[in-house]
């Protein structure tokens, strides 16, 4: 089986936010919930760099480790998913996540959290594939249709890559060799405990 990963090539990211709206479009994510976002450092200064971030679908995911109701599971493609039926909205996973991925809709006027929501790698959830109930809870299931996450597929500069870790690592390596430099595979050490050596 493939080991699915995300890789954002920060030398290509122009912070156009296509990944963000593609995600909204594909899953009809409501206002206030951002499964993916673009973070910019040194904004407006030389050395400005942007990187698109979402759930990285970690190896030994810390969210799963801290979940008191054990709602997380990892698919055969190594995608980290969760069950909204089990989730109690406790917020532990947000504290555990090194990428700030978990999101919670506000369901009351006193700050109470709803069920956690996060990037599914466009792989839906525990419900039956490509059903209305799966879409309503988790959004579209592109993986089941043989497609990759829409954020990466629509990336304006082919900066955000998604797919089998070995393939996207090879694409990135080729770019770094061609360019003669690279900003490194953002978040890989944290998420996958490995990096891409060129």
């Amino acid at each position, binding site marked *: 089986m493939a080991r699915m990963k995300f890789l954002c090539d920060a030398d290509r990211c122009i912070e156009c*936010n*296509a990944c*963000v709206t593609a995600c*909204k479009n594909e899953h009809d994510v409501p206002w206030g919930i951002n499964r993916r976002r673009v973070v910019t450092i040194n904004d407006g200064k030389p050395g*400005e760099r942007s990187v698109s971030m979402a759930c990285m679908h970690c190896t030994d995911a810390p969210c799963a480790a801290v979940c008191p109701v054990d709602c997380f599971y990892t698919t055969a493609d190594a995608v980290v998913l969760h069950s909204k039926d089990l989730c109690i909205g406790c917020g532990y996973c947000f504290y555990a996540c090194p990428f700030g991925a978990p999101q919670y809709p*506000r369901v009351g006027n006193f700050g109470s959290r709803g069920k956690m929501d996060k990037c599914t790698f466009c792989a839906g959830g525990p419900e039956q594939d490509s059903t209305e109930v799966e879409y309503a809870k988790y959004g579209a299931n592109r993986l089941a249709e043989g497609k990759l996450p829409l954020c990466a597929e629509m990336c304006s500069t*082919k900066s955000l890559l998604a797919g089998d870790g070995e393939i996207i690592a090879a694409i990135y390596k080729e770019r770094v060799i061609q360019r003669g430099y690279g900003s490194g595979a953002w978040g890989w050490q944290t998420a996958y405990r490995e990096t891409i050596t060129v």
Partner: protein
Amino acid sequence: MLTKRKSGQAGRTRLQTLMGAVSSVPLDRRTFLRRSGLAVGGMAAVGAFHLGTIKKAEAISPPQPGVPIELRKSICTHCAVGCTVTAEVQNGVWTGQEPSWDSPINRGSHCAKGASVRELVHSDRRLKYPMKLVSGQWERISWDDAINGIGDKLREIREKSGPDSVYWMGSAKFSNEGTYLFRKLAAFWGTNNQDHQARICHSTTVSGVANTWGYGAMTNSFNDIRNAKTMIIMGGNPAEAHPISLQHLLEGKELNHANFIVIDPRFTRTAAHATDYVRIRSGTDIAVLWGMLWHIFENGWEDKEFIAQRVYGMDEIRKEMAKYPPEEVERISGVPGEQLKRVAEMFATQKPATLIWCMGQTQHTVGTANVRASCILCLATGNVGKPGTGANIFRGHDNVQGATDIGLDVTTLPFYYGLTEGAWNHWARVWEVEYDYLLSRFDSKEIMEAPGIPLTRWFDAVSLPKEQIAQRDNLRAMFVQGHASNSITRIPESVKGLAKLDLLVIADPHPTTWASLAVQGGRKDNTFLLPVCTQFETSGSRVASNRSIQWGEQIVKPSFEQKDDYQVIYRLAQKLGLAERMFKNIAVEGDRPVPEDVLREMNRGSWSTGYCGQSPERLKAHMKNQRKFDLVTLRAPKDDPEVGGDYYGLPWPCWGKPELRHPGTANLYNTGLHVMDGGSPFRARFGVERNGQTLLAEGSYTEGSELTDGYPEFTMAVLKKLGWDKDLTAEELGVIQKIGSDIDKVSWSTDLSGGIQRVVLSHGCHPYGNGKARAVAWNLPDPIPVHREPIYTPRVDLVEKYPTLPDAIQFRLPNIGFSVQKAAVDKGVAKAFPLILTSGRLVEYEGGGEETRSNRWLAELQQEMFVEINPADAAERGISDGAWVWVTGAESNSKAKVRALVTQRVGKGVTFMPFHFGGWFQGEDLRQNYPQGTDPIVLGESANSITTYGYDPVTNMQEPKVTLCQVMAA
């Protein structure tokens, strides 16, 4: 089970630290502006926008499992890159958007806007029914009542004040066919007061570039920039304005190890990826370009052979350069000579090199001159007319190039024929109407041939005393179809104009700021809103910036009573009694003219610009066969049965009739190819000789040409001289004989048979001749561009040496720029308003922004209007990041209340505002002025409520890129 991270990594990662900081410390403009929209949930923000109770919003149109999916293709409506949009349609509902892998332009990619276009057809904030102001209240009316009410009022105004008192403001968001019908409607109505967004984006590019080498358009393509070894982006921010172009630019940069140079007053998101960044003072482009050229001549880096063969007047430029030594250029622009030398050397010696620009060069009182100087830099270094070179002008709207070409412009009939009697006769022949009928529709022959009033000045034409306007009466009615009001400068003046109009019609998918400002101005009646389809709800062709023409299918039918542009124009033409003549050769189904037929009529008349070969059938074949076109050359293999040898989208000029199968022209002025492979010389447009020097090319010609030197444009007389007239068929000759009494004068651009073009091409020659490009354009106010200070400049010390041009009457109105500049200096305006204000785009929004600010996925990303201010200027004023500030302007006591974004992105003494916001005016929220439920999600002050007087003498382009302002804590 708790997995412990390995020790030493217990602390948070760098990225996590950044993420965690979001809620307390502002990071960048987005996190700072939408803090509430991030990890904490952000539903509070929804409450702030009065969206009602807090609950999960209804899905707009979820996919329907098991229902067959139909894929339909159209083109994104948010910039001129021309990205294909692939829609999944189920049961007539747009349920999903897929990457368009086959398009050679976007290869699956989109930006934030393109990836969210599905929302547009589902938006609950669209205008759903025709509406009318009745005693200050918006009321729903029927289409019949709307058209009758508008038509009767138009007739009444025409009776009393003449046809020129009605202004037809059209749109770069029309398809070609919509543009053409709107242009035709204005002609049949009898006025040249018709215009569109090109006036305020690239009108100066068109005048500058066309006056240099023939046509006013991007010379190469986005894809071709992959060949460049040096790219200069001067006055553009494609990372935000044309994000998909960056795919080609960044890949080109990587593959060629290309120099990627950004010259701009602002350290843009594009500059963040540059190998070199040059910060200049706003409005000093000419000095900077001449500063580069000074080094090029000084060091002999110019392309001598290219200049000798293909350029007229370069010696005079060389002389002029003596006035721009490095010290003087640094004094004007602030750029050190050594830095410019480095950039100049790269551009001149590491070739092919391309110069890319956008509105940073064009939106100035010296816009045309800026563009000319840029072209001259390309000419001097031989960087035009080859792959990887060229003046790559990124245009803004999805069909602004098409709308420009089709003459939705105060100076010309379709396809740059101008307004002369000959031009009117040409179109009368194409339309099969009597010239005398058209003449009878105008106030006089003189006014029929006089350029109209540019849209930048519409409110001046309403408000100025009648005797200052060179037409029968003031403007009294505005018919606005698809144009924002807040993208035009001097909003306080336009609000006064809105109040005075006898009739205001807004035909648009959204009510736009026209509606909110009209109510604010005190309008109570005679104001109509017509709901119009987006391009996704109709079909037609649009022209991308690289001149490729792409056919968009209708993806879904409109949800409510919206009608497409064709229907609106047809119904109005019917009401005005013009439909029978206007649609003589165009089929109409119900009330909808068939766009394919409209395109065929355009094909029959557009010989001057080479829109004659792009039949609807060929364009549709291209959309179907997208994957066959090469990524870099844009060409399909020659042996393909449907699109063999064609360039993608048949980029104009595509000569002759469609049957001739000219492939289009991917790169203009490339003599390295045969004319039937898309090769072309510079256009012989300006005569054959000037002051004893030839204006025809010397020893340069396209591959395989039978004439191996320069030659003039082709007329029957020239054909006869060469003996090529014998090649014409009897049928072609028959058509030619019917065109005018003197057959010898019938030319490649007036021959409706296409015979002259066919014969000329068969001899490997080019219909428009083989001329030299002009370094000196003697017909312009500044034949050689010279630096001129902006009207409102902080450098008052330079005004005496570099004043703006004298006051003059232009386009029926006085342009008093010189007096305004002098008064500003005399009054010491620069002391009271010491900061430069410039403006530009954000990636999430487009144009006036009402459509994109109504899109929930985009609006969430940019929730507030802001002004960028340098930390030093902010500190002096006690302004902290994120604080409310008042920005005040130099005219009309203008003021705007916005958030401060303190950033080094702008230099000291400079402020920047995005121009997409509207719906606030002078600190007041105008949300209640919109018809209920049609207000955009995000409203804010318009940058143009602060911008000031200033018009380019050649096109009356406005000046939103440099004026003065003051900022103070609110």
